[in-house]
């Protein structure tokens, strides 16, 4: 097995979980990685207690950006929106479980960036 393109990374890339759109939705954000043109959007449904009850990512990109969104989506559903808003880069890098080189870091972080955009309005790159 490849150390980087591990089985579960390829599985999430080829069969992304929680992909598509949600209508209606409460929060949304859409963003691009200007370096490569990858794009990703998110739709969120949030209940009265502030819990994310449903979520869909949509867009296109490399195996790392797509797997990152897919893997993160499974953790984000059921999480409080303000808790999701406070997640840092390390959270998603740990979830991916592979060594991310500086050139691929933005691929890995794009899903978290759009989540921050949706939950806080501030879509800066996660630190």
């Amino acid at each position, binding site marked *: 097995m490849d150390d980087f393109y591990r089985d579960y990374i390829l599985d999430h890339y080829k069969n992304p979980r929680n992909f598509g759109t949600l209508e209606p939705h409460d929060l949304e954000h859409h963003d691009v990685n200007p370096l490569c043109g*990858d794009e990703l959007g998110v739709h969120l449904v949030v209940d009265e207690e502030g819990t994310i009850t449903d979520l869909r990512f949509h867009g296109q990109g490399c*195996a790392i950006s797509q797997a990152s969104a897919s893997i993160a989506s499974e953790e984000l559903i059921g999480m409080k929106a303000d808790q999701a808003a406070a997640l840092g880069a390390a959270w998603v890098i740990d979830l991916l479980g592979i060594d991310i080189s500086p050139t691929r870091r933005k*691929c890995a972080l794009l899903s978290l960036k759009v989540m921050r955009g949706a939950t806080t309005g501030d879509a800066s790159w996660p630190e």
Partner: protein
Amino acid sequence: MTQVASPLDVRADFPLLGRGFAYLDSAATSQKPEEVIAAIDSYYRRSNANIHRGVYALAQEATDLFEGARERVAAFVGGETACTIFTRNATEAINLVAYAWGGEHLREGDEVLITHMEHHSNIVPWQLLCRRQGAKLRYLHVSGDGRLSLDELDEALSGGRVKMVAVAHVSNVLGTINPVAEIAARARAAGAASLIDGSQAVPQLPVNVSEIGADFYVWTGHKALGPTGIGVLNGRRELLESMPPFLGGGDMIATVGFDSSTWNELPWKFEAGTSPIAEGVGLGAAVDYLAAIGMEAVRAHERELTGYTLERLAEIEGLRTFGPSDLDHRGGVVSFEVEGIHPHDLAEICDREGVCIRAGHHCAQPLMREMGIPATARASFHVYNSRADVDRLVHALQTAREVFEL
């Protein structure tokens, strides 16, 4: 595999390639031969002084090196020395024209005509100019085979509003070689000026700017085996003389009064501040190197390698290439995609095998949108590449298909 040697065998002239890379990203920047590196090294070790003003012999020596390089650079592309302006890169050269020519000649309701295959550097300066002047930016389409239509050009020109036609000589994504002499002639007949972006052409084709006959021809040194930080604007004398300066400062003036100044002669009117002297000397060495090989031989080499690449890539299942299939209309660039693998992942797996290719939108987002694809992988060639590099690329792409279990 047929073992036909490529026409050129100059890899050993390029020190960096001693590291073993199959460097297939020359459309982004080329590697540099020993001669270029040595010229820059020698300039700093032996001849460094500021140019044009010093009285001492060392300053004259530096001036002679820089201006001598300009003469050879001008001759290399068939231009007039005084109309060969050094800029920082091709982007700055286009911005120079957009400001200095555009501010004087473009009015509200006028049009600038570009194409969907332009690099961002030949789009954004015109967008900014059109916004400033209240003019309109129009685009020519690109056919499925990656070509422009001269009929569509004529139709756009027939409206009588187009004042500038700006087109790439060779597309950095599709490799298309555009009929730029014909485009410049039709623009002139319709009363429009023309600018050709030769960034991808000068490195790989015999280019004669006088024969092409455009008003402005821009290119960059670092893709033509020269250093970064130096580009070239070859312009038509009457236009350059009538245009106001782009940047103000030292070296570009004749006299400076308290309220106004008068301008230096061409080419220095457009070269404010201390010039990129070492870079100019380096570019002079680069064109000497290319001229010694001969641009016809460079073109033959790239044509052969492009043909071989298209042939070998066709062996890979799920791979699709973009751009003209006719090698007469195609330079040394091959963009492609592999079904089921994003270009970034292709580039990553190629990198593990020492194969350097580019992945992404190649600074041509409008073209990507027109082609309906978010990104491509791209292999591009120069004199130092050989069939062995292409074979390594093919092997890496096959590995990528295995990694992705395709």
